[in-house]
């Protein structure tokens, strides 16, 4: 008997196959990120450097959504990066929550082009940096945020400051996302703040071992009321607070990160309540 393969199954297989292919592609030079899976961080990329991110995200409400996001980063200078990312929805529930899969990974269902400006940096010692970054992004929705309702283009602004060393990491940041209305419809504005604490065990600081880091991430979101036909939808929007563990492994030009966020507090309509947020990210520095 031939098993039935749905479109989403085929898409999932393609994504996994793509990741495996990348896993066996020829090694190259690069430089890198060092950050969390969900929260804001201060990415580094050398002038003229490229990196590629392939992310698998899942947000669970009544049904679990599943999507990938392919991102390409370019270091215009060592302090100014450009990022373009494309989402591909593998499974979409009728009403996804208003959020960003990862704060630095773009809106759930929008094409996004961003600029990252590391406007402040202090080099405190060997392996130690204290720096701050501004993010400005433009969003273009690729599908309805709720069945039958699609917004106009959007904007994402964020700021983050943080400390990185060979053993301890900490970032704190906040952001704002707004979509223009289209035919009077738009999702609520998103305001969020993230806090990330990280640690690298001594074993993974050796030159001979991969560079593994453990993070605890906290993400708070406040969503404004959705607008439909030009009017605010009563009872929409609300607040959420997530906390969860994530990990990042770096070796040579490769990076893998994975993590989950557990909802600790939710004051939103029942349809918007979430169970877990999951993320798996693969990074390759050219």
């Amino acid at each position, binding site marked *: 008997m031939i098993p039935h393969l749905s479109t989403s199954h085929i898409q999932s297989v393609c994504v996994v196959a793509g990741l495996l292919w990348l896993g066996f592609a020829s090694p190259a030079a690069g430089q890198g990120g060092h950050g969390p899976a969900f929260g804001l961080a201060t990415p580094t990329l*050398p002038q003229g450097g490229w990196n590629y991110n392939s992310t698998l995200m899942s947000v669970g409400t009544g049904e679990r959504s599943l999507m990938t996001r392919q991102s390409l980063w370019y270091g215009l200078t060592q302090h100014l990066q450009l990022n373009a990312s494309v989402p591909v929805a593998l499974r979409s529930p009728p009403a996804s929550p208003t959020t960003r899969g990862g704060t630095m990974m773009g809106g759930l269902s929008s094409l996004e082009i961003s600029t990252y400006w590391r406007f402040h*940096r202090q080099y405190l010692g*060997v392996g130690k*940096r204290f720096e701050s970054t501004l993010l400005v992004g433009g969003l273009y929705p690729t599908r309805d945020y709720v069945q039958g309702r699609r917004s106009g283009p959007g904007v994402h602004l964020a700021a983050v400051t943080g400390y990185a060393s*060979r053993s301890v990491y900490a970032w704190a940041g906040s952001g704002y996302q707004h979509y223009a209305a289209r035919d009077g419809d738009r999702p609520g504005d998103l305001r969020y703040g993230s806090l990330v604490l990280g640690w690298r065990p001594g074993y993974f600081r*050796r030159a001979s071992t991969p560079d593994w880091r453990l993070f605890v991430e906290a993400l708070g979101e406040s969503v404004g009321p959705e607008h439909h036909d030009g009017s605010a939808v009563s009872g929409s929007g609300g607040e959420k607070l997530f906390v969860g563990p994530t990990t990042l492994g770096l070796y040579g030009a490769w990076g893998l990160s994975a993590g989950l966020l557990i909802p600790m507090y939710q004051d939103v309509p029942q349809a918007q309540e979430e169970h877990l947020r999951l993320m798996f990210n693969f990074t390759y520095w050219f």
Partner: protein
Amino acid sequence: MDEKVKAVKKTTDGASDSTEIIETHSRARLDTDDFSRCVLRSVRDAVFFKAPGHPVNGAYQISRRLLNFTLLHRTHLRHYAMNSLISRLPILLLVLACGGLFQPAQAQLQKIEQTVFGMDCAPCAHAMEQSLGSMEGVENVSVSLNDGLATVDLAKANRINYRGVRKTVENGGFSPREATLKVQGTARQEEGQWILKTPTGEEYALQPGQEGTSNEQRLQDLKPNQQVTVTGQIPASPNTEGALWPLHVQRVRSAT
């Protein structure tokens, strides 16, 4: 001014180089038949030229002078074409093809140990190795994340300058700090200050190292226009106004 141009035979024996002055010509006779013979034989014998006060790299100088000669003295060329030039053209082409036309054969910066601040991750170190390693003339690079140290070994023939190395580190998004350099160049004295100039024109203000290393005595032993190899330290935040790198000398030795 009737400067002398020396034809210097340079041989390599293991790790050390030795030079021998085999002919000296007047600069005024650079384009004479005698000099052309000398040049042609020099190319065959892998001989390098050095004009005092003109620290142009030898192999480069040979090539340039040969080309100038061929362009400016066709009459002489015709005279020697059958006897010398054409018969030795394959050797000349081989020398040029091996990079003699574009690369100096004389070492200047030989080794750099650059301390880097802010580099915290494996891909950072990997990228640093790649970007430094892609510089023409770099033979080997290793970056230690734990020590924040990039060690760069340079080829004997290179045109790398230290400013370029620091710029590469900065372009990686990190901060170059103190560095230990082994550099060869020509020493000269200006207002009591010894200055080392490399063939690429980069200049280092030689300063006594830490007490107890007797470097001051060694600096006093320097002679004007002497070719020396200096090992020393660039401070963490060098004041490079005027493009003069402060180099705290740890060791000086004659390069001739």
